[in-house]
């Protein structure tokens, strides 16, 4: 396949999203759409490390929050524009990923997961005591006027999130089909054998933690403008860790498409549940669905479909 195809797809998707906003429509659609798109980014980011490489990260909230608080600081200090916030959030969260990778990747399996969970707790404590960003109570910010061409800020954020989601998925697609991706799969299958076959396992794992952290941070950067009230309780919510793990598991972890399917299904289900029942039920729904999948279809939806095809082609 031509290398430029993903670029054109990303561009096409973004233009389509922009045209869609020109149709007007209900504000709620953009709000809910943003929610699902944000999880496409998070689930895709999680999967680069968790699915491709086999290291389960429980610290999604830490990276997401790094993006969100980087954006908040830039808003407070310089009234920085959203594109600047996104680039800065990507860099800080990527650096955090690299640092955590260095500190923890010698820990295998469950110990790595616990370390990432601890990271979340530590960062939340730090931020809760940082008065400049509102401490534990949080901080309200005011959205600037929507940029030209956009009727409202909600629509602007929606289109930005479409771009971020499409770009993340394209990146994940590229990684999966590259030499790097095959190296990551070798690490996931058997790390010692991978190293013995010439795979620079430490370097590749650092690449995965950095890229994964970077994308999670990116998902968090538009968050201050999305919610306008930034407080540690919601930025470090358990939802992020649980969802970004559950979505790829449900969709399927070995390909780029699994996290997208999982995010669309679970994200939509949660939006519907929030509107019709209560948001308190969200994690419960996720938990039940996840347990069902782990028991009945450990390869996720992608695995189910592949098995179906296999049977037919025989």
């Amino acid at each position: 396949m031509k290398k430029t195809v993903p670029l054109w797809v990303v561009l096409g998707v973004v233009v389509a999203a922009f045209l869609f906003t020109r149709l007007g429509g209900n504000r709620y659609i953009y709000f809910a759409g943003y929610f699902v798109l944000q999880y496409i980014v998070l689930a895709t980011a999680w999967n680069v490390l968790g699915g491709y490489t086999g290291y389960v990260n429980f610290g999604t909230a830490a990276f997401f929050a790094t993006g969100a608080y980087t954006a908040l600081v830039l808003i407070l200090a310089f009234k920085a524009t959203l594109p600047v916030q996104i680039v800065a959030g990507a860099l800080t969260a990527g650096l955090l990923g690299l640092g955590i990778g260095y500190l923890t990747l010698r820990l295998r399996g469950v110990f790595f997961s616990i370390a990432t969970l601890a990271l979340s707790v530590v960062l939340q404590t730090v931020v809760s005591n940082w008065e400049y960003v509102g401490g534990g109570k949080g901080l309200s910010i005011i959205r600037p006027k929507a940029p030209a061409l956009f009727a409202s800020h909600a629509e602007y954020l929606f289109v930005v999130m479409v771009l971020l989601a499409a770009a993340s998925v394209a990146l994940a697609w590229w990684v999966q089909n590259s030499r790097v991706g095959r190296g990551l799969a070798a690490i996931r299958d058997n790390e010692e054998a991978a190293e013995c076959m010439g795979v620079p396992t430490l370097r590749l794992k650092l690449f995965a933690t950095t890229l994964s952290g970077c994308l999670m941070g990116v998902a968090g950067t538009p968050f201050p403008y999305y919610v306008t009230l930034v407080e540690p309780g919601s930025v470090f919510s358990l939802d992020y860790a649980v969802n970004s793990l559950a979505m790829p598991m449900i969709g399927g972890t070995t390909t780029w498409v699994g996290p997208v399917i999982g995010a669309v299904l679970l994200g939509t289900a949660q939006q519907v549940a929030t509107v019709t029942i209560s948001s308190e039920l969200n994690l419960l729904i996720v938990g039940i669905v996840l347990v069902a999948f782990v028991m009945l279809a450990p390869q996720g939806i992608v695995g189910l479909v592949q098995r179906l095809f296999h049977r037919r082609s025989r």
Partner: protein
Amino acid sequence: MAALLEVRGVTKRFGGFQALSDVSLEVREGERFGLIGPNGSGKTTLINCISGALGTDGGTLVFRGKDITRLPAHQRTRLGICRSFQIPRPFTSMTVLENLCIPLEYAAHGQVPRSAVASEAMEILRLMGLDAKAQARPADLTGIDMRKLELARAMAAKPRLLISDEAMAGLSPAEVDAILPILFALNERGITIIMIEHIMRAVMRFSQRIAVLDAGEKIAEGTPEEVVSNKRVEKAYLGE
């Protein structure tokens, strides 16, 4: 013949347990070298130290005149050392063919053009008699095919020194006879081979020189005839 690999006074401890004590040996370019010893004598540990899977607690490793004692394993592989694992460790999510593409793309990076990776992998599978299983998953392989895959994958790293860690353990005599010619053929192509084996018949037939480990110490070294007639070796194998 020049020394390809020099092991000089290598020592390895696990906690208080001395797994290797001051082991020295030399493997020459193009040689077929056997490494034997009772169970638990430290053969796999020595291989782990040579391949870089384990660090050493003392001693020096020299490969092609270069000190590799502190090099990470993947760099040793790129220099030309590759080993198979005693307990096979295939890449389980990949097909047999894809298993070989990993070393071809990494260990042999730059030696094999990208477009030739798949055909090269197929070539090695054919040599090993595994070509019919190219699209199978490791989980669906028989015991002997799994051993062949271990060797094929190590081959795909294009090693100068191939270390085979009990590639024939648990195989029937007929299956051993199927694997031995493969190793001979690889050696004919100029690859130096260290064979670790429990099956004496196979090592004796294969090796030009043999070293014997017992309780982490090298107790003998020489031609197969010299080694079998050595009193210490007899004692190590048969007890007092």
